[in-house]
């Protein structure tokens, strides 16, 4: 690899002036307004996802003490030989948390795939 590099001289076949293509990646790198739009769409979709998972967690798990306070009779309800509060807090809550986490990971990875396709395709 020495000497002058070969330079290929070409000319666009069409007569129309060519529009210079700028990729989404370089828009983001240059921190243009368009790049900011790409970034905030990713951030917003991920934040919306995170907040909806947290809301479900707060409503269904953190709501339990309130439920127990409002309906103290629940302790007399027995399921599978366990009082309902025990069944919920000692057993059922763990598979529920795992399910919530699994759904989140799937959705978060899909958001990232969508973002990657969007910026790399353009």
């Amino acid at each position, binding site marked *: 690899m020495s000497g002058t590099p070969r330079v290929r001289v070409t000319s666009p076949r069409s007569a129309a002036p060519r529009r210079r293509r700028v990729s989404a990646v370089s828009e983001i790198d240059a*921190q243009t307004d368009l790049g900011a739009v790409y970034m905030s769409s990713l*951030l917003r979709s991920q934040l919306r996802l995170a907040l909806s998972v947290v809301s479900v967690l707060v409503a269904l798990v953190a709501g339990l003490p309130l439920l*127990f306070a409002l309906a103290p009779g629940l*302790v007399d309800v027995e399921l599978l030989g366990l009082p309902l509060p*025990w069944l919920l807090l000692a057993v059922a809550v763990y598979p529920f948390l795992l399910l919530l986490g699994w759904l989140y990971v799937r959705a978060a990875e899909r958001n*990232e795939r969508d973002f990657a396709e969007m910026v790399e395709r353009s």
Partner: protein
Amino acid sequence: MSHGYAIVAVLLVAAATLSVGAYGWRFSRTTSDFFVASRSVRPALNASAIGGEYLSAASFLGVAGLVLAFGTDMLWYPVGWTAGYLVLLVLVAAPLRRSGAYTLPDFAEARLESRTVRGLSSLLVVAVGWLYLMPQFQGAGLSLRTVAGTPAWAGGLLVGAVVLVNVFFGGMRSITFVQAFQYWLKLTALLVPVMVLLAAWSGDGARSPLGGAWVSPLASADAHPLYTTYSIVIATFLGTMGLPHVVVRFYTNPDGRTARRTTLVVLALLGLFYLLPPVYGALGRVYTPDLVAAGASDTVVLELPARMVEGVAGELLSALTAAGAFAAFLSTSSGLTIAVAGVLSQDVMGRRFRGVRSFQASAVVAVVVPLVLAVSAEGVGVARAVGLAFAVAASTFCPLLVLGIWWRRLTDVGAVAGLVVGGLLSGGAVVLTLIGDPRAGWGGALVAQPAAWTVPLAFATMIGVSLLTPARVPRHVNRTMVRLHTPEAVDLDRGPAPAAG
């Protein structure tokens, strides 16, 4: 209880910990190995290590003891410690890994471009770490005294020595192997005895432990059970992400995507483990109710097998739970030592020592200070002190991480104000709880479980002061957001990696 088997079991755990660690020593060569195992740990191994590190004395002994003594409301501790991982997964796991920083102060400095925020974070990491280490050493002393009749300081000293040897020679790489091993040891040490105990229980007429106020939620003697329950929920849900030994683990994942998948496996491992301690608490109601009156309910996991199963079999099962308890002390103390030593070596020792040497010197300081505190101070109660560490973490690092990751307008002044307010209020409540006698009424409830009011105040301060100082939004915040949130596969300019050390 015969002491022979239990002593052998504890010594075996110590020896196994050292030899599994020695397997890792051979790979530890560079500073990066010591800090974050060169970021090459796969999800399955890393999740076992996180589980092993996270399940401390409070989980292994404390939950069963609390359930035995106080009943249903105490089930919120294990639920919160697991849900805390879900909140961490959803809000910080991947961005935290992508930040590329070694420690929490690294993250704070990279995001806010401020040495002041870094210094304050370092101070808080060391404070939370020592607050969490001290009860581990105290619990180790208590347990070794229960199973082997040694003086109170011996257990803490043994744990401190083993941890120091491993951290000293192997750093994070060696600790990863050790902790993955210890998760499975802890699970076995609760699972095998519980199956024998349940068989013995049903053969014994299956007397129901349920009944009375014990089984009802919100029926405890506390003046304000609903407030206390919610404060525990807030501290545990939000505090997990701010514990220094939890956060440092995320940097060992290869990338953001594996950080998420690792956390998901952790959720499964924690859920599996936490099914077991309440069973011990419930069986304790039938077979060892005297422990509550004796103020020794924390030892129910250690005592129950020997009480329920006669002869050598019962003693062997008790020895197995003792081994699990020691695995719990060793693994959590190792993780905390790594985290505190990492911060000390970067921010305190860095100028005098270089690289690995600096990390090792810091590890000595990180272990010796809380060990001296644990030996000299009165016992505080393992689960209670650990709960306070969660409250401080939730009031300081939780707002810093959540706002830092999701809110562009966070400023360095806002972060400092929030950390100071959250740290002083929760720290003040901790000091009052540790030195003062418990007070009745609202004042007592607010001080004993501060998270429900300190966390919102810390968030409000951080947001309010940031909005008042819009000119101080960090210059490179957009580049930092690209770094935190975009998948690594996309080739983008993420700015320079945060300088380590």
